[in-house]
């Protein structure tokens, strides 16, 4: 891109004005004082210069307008990008696992489930055999292009199990009815959920799981089960987060 600053534009403008003034003077002399002998070549030369500088000034002026336009555009893009980055780096808490008691063979925990808007949805206490808890979620990751535009990934809690208890023998954290309520409470927040298209977020998710082409068409990049787990070493609290960049993370809360 050409680097044209105000100095160049002002110089061109000044020269254009000077040559235009000289041109006017000569024209005046020709018209009202034909007796004065002025070189025609000199006059033509100034006329030529004036024309060149007017054209140059117009070109540079247009370029300057374009430059202002692109600067504003870049600034707006930057604002948009900041929004995208902000949205991509967003994370939402999904669950809290509080270990209340543990031994070498089992543990007690309180599981708090949060809806996607961050409100507590369900709180229950469980006693499970084992020394490591596993909390499984169903996660729908959308294409980055949708995330950037403001959509959010979706996840819901599925099964609680342990190192000694298989996934199939684990505890279902939400009944089918609870799951519908859990998901529909936030359905207006997500992409592709107009009334005409699907009735609720749960329908949308199940359709995505069972129909790959539907999922792809609606911008779903991946659908996975993700079981986060941690060895129980103390009475501690763990928080599970849903990342907009994709996937889940779990952190141990420090007091």
């Amino acid at each position, binding site marked *: 891109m050409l680097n044209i600053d105000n100095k160049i534009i002002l110089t061109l403008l000044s020269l254009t004005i000077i040559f235009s003034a000289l041109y006017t003077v000569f024209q005046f002399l020709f018209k009202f004082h034909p007796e004065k002998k002025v070189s025609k070549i000199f006059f033509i030369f100034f006329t030529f210069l004036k024309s060149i500088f007017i054209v140059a000034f117009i070109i540079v002026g247009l370029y300057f307008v374009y430059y202002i336009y692109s600067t504003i555009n870049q600034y707006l893009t930057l604002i948009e990008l900041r929004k995208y980055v902000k949205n991509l780096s967003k*994370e939402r808490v999904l669950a809290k696992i509080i270990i209340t008691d543990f031994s070498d063979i089992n543990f007690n925990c309180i599981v708090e489930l949060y809806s996607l808007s961050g409100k507590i949805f369900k709180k229950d206490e469980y006693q499970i055999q*084992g020394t*490591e808890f*596993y909390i*499984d979620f*169903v*996660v729908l*990751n959308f294409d980055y292009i949708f995330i950037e535009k403001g959509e959010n990934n979706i996840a819901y809690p599925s099964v609680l*199990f*342990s*190192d*000694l*208890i*298989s*996934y*199939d*023998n684990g505890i279902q954290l939400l009944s089918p009815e609870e799951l519908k309520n859990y998901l529909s409470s936030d359905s207006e927040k997500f992409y592709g959920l107009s009334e005409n298209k699907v009735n609720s977020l749960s329908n949308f998710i199940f359709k995505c*799981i*069972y*129909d*790959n082409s539907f999922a792809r068409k609606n911008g779903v*990049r*991946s*659908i*996975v*089960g*993700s*079981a*986060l*787990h*941690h*060895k129980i*070493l103390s009475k*501690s609290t*763990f928080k599970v987060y849903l*990342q907009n*960049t*994709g*996937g*889940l*993370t*779990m*952190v*141990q809360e*420090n007091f």
Partner: protein
Amino acid sequence: MKKYFWLIAIVILFILAAFILKITYNFVIRSRVNVEKAISILKNEFIPLKMKIFISENIIKYQLKFYDQMGINVAAINDSISGNQLLIDFYVIKIKDNNLFFPYLIYSNEIPPVMGKKIFEVYEKNYDGILFPEIYASDDMNENYLYFISSIWQAIKSGNITFFSSNYNGNALHLLSNISEIDPNAVYEFVCHTAKGGIEIVKH
């Protein structure tokens, strides 16, 4: 003479103390810089594992291929397990706001984790006596990076993952697609996000 003897002893003690302090300082500073330098080599997003899967009559046949940071295949597993959902378990270790991922266990919806199959030694490589998880081999790899990754690797292998305490967790991933929808020719990639710590499975 006795007075001078004490003076010399005090001076020697001071020199010794300064020497010890210097060594401690060097060690602390050096180890801090080492971790940061090693972390700077990590990629923000990478695929250490790709999977092909075929499920029939409650048996999962799977093929796993491990890749290094340059995308070169470094190891593979072909095996089967009973069940209809395969869980691939990763250790996720957080160090200085970055996450390291190590696939280490395989089990199914029917088999509890404690009975799972350990897979982490498949992608281990010996670098002149230093055991290193080859999924972290990189073009920019240096001695510092090698020692950094291998020290974490040693902790995982020796079962001392709890050493990292609050800075680690496991993440067992599994496909949710309908069994009939799983294409035996499709390749599923495990995408790991170093900065955030998330893992996802993306169909290639």
